[in-house]
């Protein structure tokens, strides 16, 4: 049980998240990938909090902030996906080219 | 601002009102808990149907003159009357008669209008069967005597509320001979006859 274990897992989770973010064509799966990346970051923060600053728990405070922001992000992101779905009748990322010329 | 405060006040008032009504409802439900249960333990106990109960129709083959009045007064022309016209006697001879109790609404019109009283209502109400065609009673089935709840040794017959002795609310354990509350129909009839002897 060492700090490095947790950091490695967090790195793996982060990379999975990036892969999903780039390759997914379903807009909702992109949102899920973002959540995965945020979780990886959270795990890093928590590991640092436990091994480098166990008494101060500043990492935990930061994680709480990240969780808060993630909830807000999920709500807004889903609202955007819903309104795009209403307007374009698809959730394929390849078709979201409204701002492309 | 004042308007807003008034709105808040009205809303709070409505909430309190709602709470009051729910409280009243709760007290009603709570009050129901101390009432006597009306349950009849059905296959073991059965209520005795009243005299005017409109159950399965009984039919007497020999009385029937195949006049088909029952068919005409029936809201759905339900009874099936099959007859031959006997040229010699110039009378109809009944061949078969049937009523489908899966369709019958037990209105009693046929019984009411039958000129020879060959139809009558019985107190039989357990007509369930596994096949709905079994509900189509022919003249033999219609001619069977109805069974009586009071005759069944397996069943505890219970009197309905209106037939209980005065002051009695629970039909359990009321002796058979006990007189019901109020006057019996024949007593009313007698009284009427006594009041108007000349008619």
């Amino acid at each position, binding site marked *: 049980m060492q700090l490095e274990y947790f*950091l490695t897992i967090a790195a793996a989770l982060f990379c999975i998240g990036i892969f999903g973010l780039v390759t997914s064509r379903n807009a909702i799966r992109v*949102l899920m990938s973002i959540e995965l990346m945020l979780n990886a970051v959270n795990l890093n923060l928590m590991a640092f909090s436990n091994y480098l600053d166990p008494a101060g728990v500043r990492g935990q405070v930061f994680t709480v902030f990240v969780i808060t922001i993630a909830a807000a992000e999920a709500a*807004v992101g*889903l609202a955007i996906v*819903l309104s795009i779905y209403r307007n374009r009748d698809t959730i394929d990322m390849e078709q979201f080219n409204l701002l492309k010329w | 601002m004042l308007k807003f405060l008034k709105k808040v006040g009205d809303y709070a008032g409505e909430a309190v009102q709602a709470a009051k009504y729910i409280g009243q409802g709760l007290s009603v439900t709570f009050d129901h808990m101390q009432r006597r249960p009306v349950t009849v333990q059905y296959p073991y106990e059965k209520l005795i149907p009243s005299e005017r109960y409109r159950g399965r129709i009984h039919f007497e083959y020999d009385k029937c003159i195949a006049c088909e009045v029952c068919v005409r007064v029936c809201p759905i022309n339900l009874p099936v009357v099959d007859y031959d016209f006997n040229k010699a006697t110039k009378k109809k001879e009944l061949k078969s008669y049937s009523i489908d109790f899966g369709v019958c609404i037990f209105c009693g019109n046929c019984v009411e209008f039958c000129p020879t009283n060959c139809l009558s209502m019985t107190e039989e109400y357990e007509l369930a069967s596994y096949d709905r065609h079994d509900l189509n009673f022919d003249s033999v089935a219609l001619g069977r005597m109805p069974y009586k709840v009071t005759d069944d040794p397996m069943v505890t017959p219970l009197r309905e509320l209106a037939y209980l002795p005065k002051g009695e609310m629970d039909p359990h354990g009321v002796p058979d001979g006990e007189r019901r509350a109020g006057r019996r129909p024949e007593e009313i009839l007698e009284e009427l006859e006594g009041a108007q002897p000349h008619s």
Partner: protein
Amino acid sequence: MNLGEGVQLVSFGLLTALMLGSALGVVLAQSVVYSAFLLGLTFTGMAGLYLLLNADFVAAAQILVYVGAVNVLILFGVMLVNKQMAFEKVPGLALRQATTGLVCAGLFGLLTTVALTTPWMLSTTTPAGDGAIVAIAQHLFSDFLLPFEVASVLLLMALIGAIVLARRDLLMDNSATGLSDDLELKLPERPKASLSSGGEP
């Protein structure tokens, strides 16, 4: 190694396998509904890892917010846009995926090397444990007060923004008379049928 450490190690291994496996499932599963449910599993595994890191409050918060709110929200999203359709073919998709995979693997290697080679200044003080709740609260209301307030404002903005975005268009005709005293947020919504027919009023 005593009993407690063994239990910790085993549960660490199990949780890691569970979490990484379900995270891979989130990204690779064919059906979005499966990935949404697997996402919940990932979050739960993460909460377990937080427990191993002596942070039970954050673990419970993780369950409450991520599993209870975010994941349910995503599931709602999946079921609201539940349209069975095959995406159109795009040329060069396989190449793109392979490149992304390579880049991600490289990034993973890089991060792992950094994590393994950096000399971390490990602290030997005992973890706060149950006292962490109090410590977090003290942080929130002293040195992290500004971020705390900003986060609450952000949450409010996100709340209103999400409602405005996800709401059907409002019919503004009868509010054109100007702001009266009685103006309530009771503007009629455009019925859904007129939207799906595609006709712009």
